[in-house]
């Protein structure tokens, strides 16, 4: 089983760390194989930042993600740029306050989360990426919640550990609630207003 994951947003949202946490969880804590790559081009500065991760039970040969099974987008630009590459029927996880969906998202299993708002409620906007990792684990099951939680704990500075674990748990909890309701699937309408949106 091989899963391609891409996490994208804008610089400063912590997409690299989020991807690193998941990769570390899979390879160090689950003992599976994980290969992470990231975009180093000039476009990584200020604009769309993205990182990619392949998780597999077998050694990974081809290093790059081509059609992600799981696409996480945390900015409109990232959504616009990367959604066309998503594998049909794959997961599209969106920061729902920052992304407006259109027909590009058709055929994907969409789950939205107001991660930035949740992060602000926890007192630090920075942890939105960790909320997203918890959300991803809960929704997709690609990486176990247990392994990812351990990876969060050993990836962040000690003084922010509790905060980050709270953030992770928040993402997991919201994901599990949403999972019960099932994905939003965008059929013919041009736009979709996700539940929770005003």
């Amino acid at each position, binding site marked *: 089983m091989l899963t391609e994951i891409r996490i994208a947003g804008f610089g400063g949202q912590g997409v690299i760390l989020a991807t*690193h946490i998941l*990769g*570390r969880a899979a*390879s*160090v804590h689950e003992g599976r*194989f*994980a*290969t*992470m*790559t*990231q975009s*180093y*081009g000039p476009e990584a500065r200020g604009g769309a930042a993205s990182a990619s991760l392949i998780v597999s039970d077998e050694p*990974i*040969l*081809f*290093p*790059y993600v081509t059609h992600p099974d799981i696409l996480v987008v945390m900015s409109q630009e990232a959504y616009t740029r990367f959604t066309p590459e998503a594998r049909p029927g794959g997961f599209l996880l969106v920061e729902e306050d920052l992304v407006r969906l259109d027909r590009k998202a058709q055929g994907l299993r969409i789950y939205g989360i107001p991660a930035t708002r949740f992060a602000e409620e926890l007192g630090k906007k920075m942890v939105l990426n960790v909320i997203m990792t918890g959300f991803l684990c809960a929704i997709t099951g690609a990486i176990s919640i247990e392994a990812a939680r351990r990876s969060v704990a050993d990836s962040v500075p000690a003084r922010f550990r509790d905060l980050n674990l709270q953030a992770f748990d928040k993402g997991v909890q919201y994901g599990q609630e949403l999972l019960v309701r099932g994905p939003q699937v965008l059929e013919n309408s041009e736009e979709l207003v996700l539940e929770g949106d005003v």
Partner: protein
Amino acid sequence: MTHADPRCVLTGTHFINGDAACCEGALAAGARFAAGYPITPSTEIVERFAARAPEVGGLFIQMEDEIASSIAIQGMVWAGQKAFTVTSGPGFSLMMEHIGFAAMTETPVVFVDVQRGGPSTGLPTLPSQGDMMQARFGSHGDYAIIALSPNSPQECFDLTVKAFNLAEEFRVPVMLMMDECVGHMTERVVIPPAEQIPVYPRRHTKKPPGEFRLFEPGEDLVPDMAHAGEGYKVYVTGLTHDERGYPSLSPAAQKKLVFRLFEKIRRAADRLVMVESDQLEGAEVVVVSYGITSRVALRAVQMARAKGIRVGTLRLICVWPFPEKLIRELAPKVKALVMPELNMGQVVLELERCAGGQCRVISVPHAGGTVHDPAEILAAIERGAQ
């Protein structure tokens, strides 16, 4: 062989990129000095070394350029430490003069080249394997070197240790030919306990200063070493020299020295072969590759096998010296050798030479900037099987 100093070894299971793993390999191998002029995509190696080295009494100096970096490290070696520099294509070109100096003066030193697209400044953040011939032949004059090619962050660690050990054993500059893809790729890297990491110590002479000649070869054609400031006569010159190290500008001295510089590597060539092979027995086509390309090639091989083609793989971990004997034995047994490289066809020239017309040799060139589409390699395998 001794083993690594536990203070410098980050034993454990990590999720780090190839550049970081290379730095940890250098520290484990005993490197205590790096000089460099940081350049993408190699920067992270010395960035990490600059942070880590002081913890173990080491030092990084950011030099004014690559020319200075490539000679500063050699000064440090002759002062008694293990040293290396890291660069990418444009800097590697500038280092050529001093790679020749290291070969001529038999200075054990490691050059890490994290290859990016070229020529010139090319593609700073994207991979290539375009410096493979330059690694072998880039400096003027005739000399031999050793070049290793890792295909994962784990191997960036393992082969960096190996590079230092080979440099010490053979007293040659050793090239670690990484590429942007393995350098920036993050994967699991297991760093063993220090006592499981063999380290080749400096071949320091046991003779007293009066009896020691700086370039007098041992039985393996490699001379023992003494450092400046220890009371020995340490005369190190790029000029053709005699066994004392003094300039000796005659055809006879030139012949003696240059033949030995070649012969010490050639004689050990069988021992230096480092390959990984699979299903060579009965193969109609063998895909020969190295570095990141070997992983992409393996995907193509799986696709070809699924189509019923008998395909073997041969991965060169040590590219220079080239496994000549192995290829001479393999070529008559197969229909074709297929060699994908992230360059316009470099090492394939050596493959073709060694195959000696005994089978078809099919190059799968690539201009660099990304890795091959496995379908391109598959097409070459299918052509070779016809």
